[in-house]
């Protein structure tokens, strides 16, 4: 798909919404407003928002743990996103899962198991179903560079390559798996080169450049939909904060963090939009106002929404009455 001016504006809106909500949730966690922990994806928004925007509403998404942007872009009401983080009864997972287990079955986003890479073969299986049913859909799965070190990544990509399935693998390489730097994770020259082992293309793009991510996804999605098989897209990016919000990330040099903050995808995209005359100060101000109101409302809603009943845990262990 070609991006229209409306698309570009909408993308900016979604990036800003993702960023703003993420930042609010971080703070709410620190204020003790919800239990568990919180995984911020601030800094990485372009890598989830842009691919999701390019998908059809019923294309499958298999997320990992930093895909709040995918949920928002897919159109899940913000109320439900916050209910998920707050583990309320109205959460898509009924409060069963940890915050940041972003997903929503009705929106074709799997509520993931949070073992790294585990969702990758599942996405491949979904793509197999699309192929068999001749459905014009594709499956996309997100994961960090850390997950590419796991066996499930290898087995799944290898199989997807054999059958040229309509699946696209999107790796957010943020250079750390928790505290472990890339040099201790792999000696490969980059992550996308791993695709060579599976016989399909791998590309590396600046994941903080909205238009670059757009181009890589457009090409890969087109190829996958037209029977050309999978692509591994590596988006280099950076998480601004700790692995989760209890991690102060002392293992990263401050200069590195600062350098990456300068590469913030949102102002970069904003400059482009201003240059192209797509966005104006007033429009932006209006977007910001709307987002703030929407988020306030959603948080208010979630905070006042009921917690799961204790017995809810017993529900849905089986689909079958046994």
């Amino acid at each position: 798909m070609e991006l229209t001016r409306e698309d570009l504006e909408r993308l900016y809106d979604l990036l800003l919404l993702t960023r703003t909500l993420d930042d609010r949730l971080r703070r709410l966690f620190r204020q003790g407003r919800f239990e568990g922990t919180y995984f911020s994806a601030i800094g990485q928004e372009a890598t989830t928002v842009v691919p999701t925007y390019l998908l059809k509403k019923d294309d499958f998404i298999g997320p990992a743990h930093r895909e709040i942007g995918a949920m928002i872009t897919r159109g899940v009401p913000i109320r439900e996103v916050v209910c998920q983080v707050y583990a309320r009864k109205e959460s898509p997972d009924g409060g069963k899962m940890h915050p940041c287990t972003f997903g929503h079955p009705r929106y074709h986003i799997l509520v993931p198991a949070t073992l790294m890479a585990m969702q990758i073969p599942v996405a491949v299986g979904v793509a197999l179903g699309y192929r068999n049913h001749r459905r014009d859909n594709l499956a996309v799965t997100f994961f960090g560079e850390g997950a590419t070190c796991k066996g499930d990544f290898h087995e799944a990509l290898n199989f997807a390559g054999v059958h040229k399935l309509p699946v696209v693998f999107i790796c957010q390489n943020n250079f750390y798996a928790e505290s472990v730097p890339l040099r201790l994770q792999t000696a490969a020259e980059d992550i996308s080169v791993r695709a060579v082992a599976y016989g399909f293309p791998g590309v590396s793009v600046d994941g903080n450049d909205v238009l670059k991510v757009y181009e890589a996804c457009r090409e890969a999605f087109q190829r996958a939909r037209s029977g050309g098989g999978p692509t591994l897209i590596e988006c280099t990016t950076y998480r601004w904060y700790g692995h989760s919000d209890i991690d102060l990330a002392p293992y990263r040099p401050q200069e590195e963090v600062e350098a990456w903050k300068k590469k913030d995808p949102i102002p970069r995209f904003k400059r482009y939009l201003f240059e192209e005359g797509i966005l104006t100060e007033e429009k932006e101000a209006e977007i910001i106002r709307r987002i703030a109101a929407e988020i306030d409302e959603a948080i208010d809603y979630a905070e006042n929404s009921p917690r799961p009943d204790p017995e809810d845990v017993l529900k849905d262990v089986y689909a079958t009455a046994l």
Partner: protein
Amino acid sequence: MKEVTYIQAINDALHEEMERDPSVIILGEDVGIYGGVFKATYGLLEKFGEERVIDTPIAESMIIGVSVGAALSGLRPVAEIQFADFISPAFDQLVQQAAKLHWRNNGALNVPMTVRCPYGGGVGGGVYHSQSVEAWFQIPGLIVVSPSTPYDAKGLLKAAIRCEDPVLYFEHKKLYRSIKEEVPEEEYIVPIRKARIARKGKDVTLISFGLMLYRSLEAALKLAEEGIEAEVIDLRTLYPMDKETIFDSVGRTRRAVVIHEAPKMGGIGGEIAAMLAEELFWKLDAPVKRIAGLDTPFPFAPTMENYYLPSTEKIVQGVRETCEA
């Protein structure tokens, strides 16, 4: 009626289910071109083509993970794990992914998939081709079945394929060609979570499945000569279990012996004995005996394998002790 072997019953069930429902697919190692190393999937590739019968690379975790995904997009995968022993690499996808997916998604997604696993000893397979691993899968969200007869092999496989939950289907390699019986030509299903009384008796209940069911039945015949009438239960579903049938039987006989191939410690016999000790305690007239594989890996040399597996003689002896207690 048609006389079939246990393996033929499995093959028939697969053919029939694939004909009935175009969403049923087969995947696993050597299941296509070769028709399965035990020929369970014989003839399927020719009939249903490469898209529905998929020879996979050696990657059990992928086989299960892909099956989960396929199930989510409207297929009904029947995966084959070539030997049950090789399910361990897929343990993760089964236990963390498949078992918990429906629950995790708050009931909004189902995972209708079947995993066929040839298992069991007595075939000279050694440690990596003989294990009985059903106890690993006592995991909420999974269903574990294991037929002992051709009739049940067919009916339970159909039930598994039509089930909306992930089902592990353990088929005993030693029974593949050694057991034959007549099964109806017309369609039938053997319901999940229903045990079967394989032999009526009043003095003691033997609880078993698979190859050990036959040794238990043999033992029952010998015991009958001594005047001990053993009831023999064929469990059929191993998790979650059919408590009702077990409790009803042991409630009557007041004595129970559980027999399985897996090592005794941590085996499903423990769960059965514990259930009895907890909920049927007052009706027990004797200790609940477990006759099981040894607490060692499964040996290859026939001398050791024979010693490892519960023999009919060992069962007779154990039941005798239980009845004398």
